[in-house]
């Protein structure tokens, strides 16, 4: 352990770019990115489940508005959505006096709102696809048992749809991690924000961006392996024997 600390100190000694200060920025950046991505994914997921059920509804007055929402949020760049929410909230007269302001004042929450709405739209469509692909046999079996629509949704359709959605949802999680890099545009010190700071201060693009690229790469692989593990466990019964 001592060897390791000495080695680390030697590595940093005489290094103008990777000082304890800049490493501190990368660390807070990692924390901010993780919080932002994790929270938006969790809230987005919670929103997406009822939305996906509504989107699969036979009543057009339920499914159409939800389709419009997912179409708009999937059809426009997240950057624009972020700009609209970040700059837009300010222009509601008197918002600064309301209880919402302490929240919206920080760049974190407008970014969180934009990311959440975005990922909820994608996740809704992923789940809708999975619900639509429910094998007829499973539904007929449930009906034969005399299950109500709600019970069937809860016990049969949703659990099987979740499993089918898993690979696509794993991609969405990685997509969200990568998309979160734009948070630095609205002053958030996320991982990319830390890299931009280091770059602007030391004019060292390789050190600044390669380092942060390596961190993102590790995070991506961690997510990838987590979902592979989940798939192995949850989809084992679908594997050809």
């Amino acid at each position, binding site marked *: 352990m001592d060897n390791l600390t000495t080695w680390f100190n030697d590595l940093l000694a005489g290094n103008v770019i990777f000082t304890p200060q800049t490493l501190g920025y990368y660390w807070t950046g990692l924390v901010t990115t993780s919080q932002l991505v994790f929270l938006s994914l969790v809230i987005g997921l919670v929103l997406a489940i009822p939305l996906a059920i509504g989107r699969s509804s036979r009543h057009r007055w339920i499914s159409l508005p939800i389709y419009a929402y997912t179409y708009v949020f999937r059809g426009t760049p997240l950057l*624009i959505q972020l700009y609209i929410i970040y700059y837009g909230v300010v222009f509601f007269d008197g918002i600064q006096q309301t209880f919402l302001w302490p929240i919206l004042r920080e760049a974190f929450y407008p970014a969180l709102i934009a990311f959440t709405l975005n990922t909820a739209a994608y996740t809704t469509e992923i789940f809708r696809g999975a619900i639509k692909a429910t094998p007829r046999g499973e539904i007929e079996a449930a009906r034969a048992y005399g299950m109500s629509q709600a019970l069937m949704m809860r016990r049969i359709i949703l659990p099987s749809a979740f499993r089918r959605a898993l690979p696509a949802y794993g991609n969405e999680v990685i997509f969200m991690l990568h998309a979160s*890099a734009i948070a630095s545009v609205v002053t958030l010190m996320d991982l990319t924000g830390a890299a931009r700071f280091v770059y602007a201060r030391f004019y060292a693009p390789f050190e600044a961006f390669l380092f942060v690229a390596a961190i993102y790469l590790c995070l991506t692989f961690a997510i990838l392996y987590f979902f592979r593990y989940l798939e192995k466990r949850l989809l084992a019964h679908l594997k050809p024997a």
Partner: protein
Amino acid sequence: MFDLHGYGPRLLEGAGVTIQLAILSLALAIVLGLLTASAKMSRNWLLHKVATLYTTLIRGVPDLVLMMLLFFGGQMVLNLATDALYDRFGVDWYVNLNAFAAGALTIGFIFGAYMGETFRGAFMAVDHGQIEAGKAYGMSNWLVFRRIRFPLMMRHALPGLSNNWMVLLKTTALVSVIGLSDMVRIAAEASRATHEPFTFLLPVAAIYLLIASVSEWFFARLQKRYDVGFGEH
């Protein structure tokens, strides 16, 4: 409908930049994607490894970070090279990466990796018997590729291709962050100057939706063409 405060022409110009950038990057991505797919399917061990490394690395890192790395770092590498030319041999010329070229190269480079996967899957889905039939007719490898493998592959590749194009289109918005005056950047600039974000950002969002809808229609037609001769009539 909207009072654009005189920013209208510049916004249109920006929309032009966005569309040009998207189409140029797409062309580059398709070329790189085809090369990558061939490398991955080749029996050459080294080619296979290089292609795999390329697709893995690119897909593991955010677009924006790659864009900044290539835009800011790529130029530095070029400079080192041209400075060395000057110092050693007195050759006095330099290569200048402008924001548009850097944007198109970066996006093309990134989506080349995604296209590579799409094309590889599609090539593998082509019925081998068709290729053998072509060879039996005495077609050269290139002719087999052009007349048989490529058109058949496209049928399988189109859904993925169309999906990649939609993502690519939205990715072009990121070039505004590295300084290219596309429509997102001009809209953001105008919103700051006039303090009216909705006036500029909402129409730009609408343009993206419009391009996406037109593309959807176009790809649906294309799919019909490549589906000729296959099932469901």
